[in-house]
């Protein structure tokens, strides 16, 4: 195939997909704002996306905080600046690693699950059935998931922030000879509210992207079981890429603070 033609075709395909995702997101947000609301569905999704993700997010955070502390201690040692480690750990966790890691864990766990569930519903005509039962699939399926992810990921990130800093504290006090009280005081005195708030804002955006990718790829599933598998893969990969892209954009936007 002519390489120019292939490039043009894939560019057009990407633009088409971007347009379709934007329209889908707009429809999903519209459905989340306007009644009727499916509160039972929202509650179920808060549990599925948030509560059941707590162990995986917590474990990721504690190990990341601990490894970060060790790396910063080693790096800081080259400039005789080991004592600044607690502050850097806190900054790294709250502004960057807390929201990004929580979102990536959710991309793997939740985006895939949403795509598989909605994809299977598409393949077995359950989405068509919703329409014949006078129910808008966007209000019943998409809106509760988008809303739940936007609400829940900042909460998970706050938990990840605390556990991540605690991971650093454990390593610092148990193996690096830091005083526990001094570590906490240094962290507390150094952190500004914007460090935490900017991370939580990022988390809300990531939550939207994670749920959106799961919903979009699941909803657009074609071709039975193979299609569901493809949708799941696409959901996870695209959610991860969008998380990193959005992270860079928001970090650029927030740097003047």
């Amino acid at each position, binding site marked *: 195939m002519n390489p120019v033609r292939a490039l043009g075709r894939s560019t057009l395909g990407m633009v088409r997909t971007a347009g379709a995702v934007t329209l889908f997101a707009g429809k999903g947000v519209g459905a989340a704002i306007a009644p009727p609301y499916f509160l039972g569905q929202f509650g179920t999704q808060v549990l599925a996306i948030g509560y059941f993700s707590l162990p995986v997010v917590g474990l990721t955070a504690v190990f990341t905080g601990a490894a970060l502390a060790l790396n910063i201690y080693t790096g800081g040692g080259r400039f005789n600046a080991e004592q600044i480690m607690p502050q850097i750990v806190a900054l790294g966790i709250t502004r960057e690693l807390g929201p990004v890691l929580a979102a990536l864990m959710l991309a793997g766990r939740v985006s895939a699950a949403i795509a598989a569930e909605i994809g299977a519903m598409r393949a077995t005509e359950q989405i*068509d059935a919703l329409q014949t*039962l*006078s129910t*808008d699939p966007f209000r*019943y399926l998409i809106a509760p998931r988008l809303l739940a992810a936007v609400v829940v990921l900042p909460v998970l990130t706050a938990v990840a922030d605390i556990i991540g800093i605690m991971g650093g504290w454990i390593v610092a006090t148990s193996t690096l000879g830091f005083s526990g009280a001094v570590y906490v005081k240094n962290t507390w005195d150094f952190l500004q509210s914007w460090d935490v708030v900017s991370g939580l804002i990022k988390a809300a955006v990531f939550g939207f992207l994670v749920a959106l990718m799961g919903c979009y790829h699941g909803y657009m599933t074609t071709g039975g079981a193979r299609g569901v598998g493809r949708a799941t893969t696409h959901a996870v990969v695209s959610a991860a890429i969008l998380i990193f892209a959005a992270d860079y954009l928001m970090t650029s936007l927030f740097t003047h603070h």
Partner: protein
Amino acid sequence: MPAAPAKIELKGVKKAFGGRMVLDGVDLAVAPGASLVIIGGSGQGKSVTIKIAAGLMRADAGKVFVDGADVTRLRGAAQRRRAGQFGFLFQGAALFDSLPVWRNVAFRLLYADRLPPAEARAAAVEALRRVGLGEHVADLYPGELSGGMQKRVGLARAVAAHPEILFFDEPTTGLDPINADVINNLIVEQVKRLGSTAVTITHDLASARKIGDEIAMLYGGRIIWRGPAADIDRSGNPYVEQFVAGRAEGPIASGG
């Protein structure tokens, strides 16, 4: 006195997928209270026809009328209101696996008609009883039911809100002959009880003969024959004759 409009009507409906014309000008009208069965081979567009009629798929060209009103381009709330007139039994029943049976049956009553749960449950249990399922089934999940029971639950869901038009998509596919006959009998019983108009697609001729007042055959994207169910064996149409006889030789094999 002008004749009453058809309950549901398709005029010149066309639909193509990836350049392949599946429906090439389908014209169909079903009178109020009548039961029409559309037969045809696999891949002839039966499912597409019924989905366009029920508003689940958009036609590329042509129009759909319900009670004489053009519903081809209905969207959003207007489309959902229109869907309130319909009941649909899907080929695989399409039950929501995360909900117990009674919530499946009462779904429209609960979420579209906003009935209190106790009232909706009572209506669901009554609908289940009408398709021969006891109250104990109400609290089971679809995954705990056999294929035949899932079809019955699907039928109970389709008729629970007393629809004016019922669509049946391959109602007996995947069932053994006895269960298939049970489903056929239940369909006939429910359609008569409600006085609904029914549109069924199937390639099961025993089912077509039992359910339909009339039978139409879809082939090559068009309706090539239509007549009373009793006339299916003397249609005089070589395509219909080959389909009814189940012969490999004939115009269908040679023509496509």
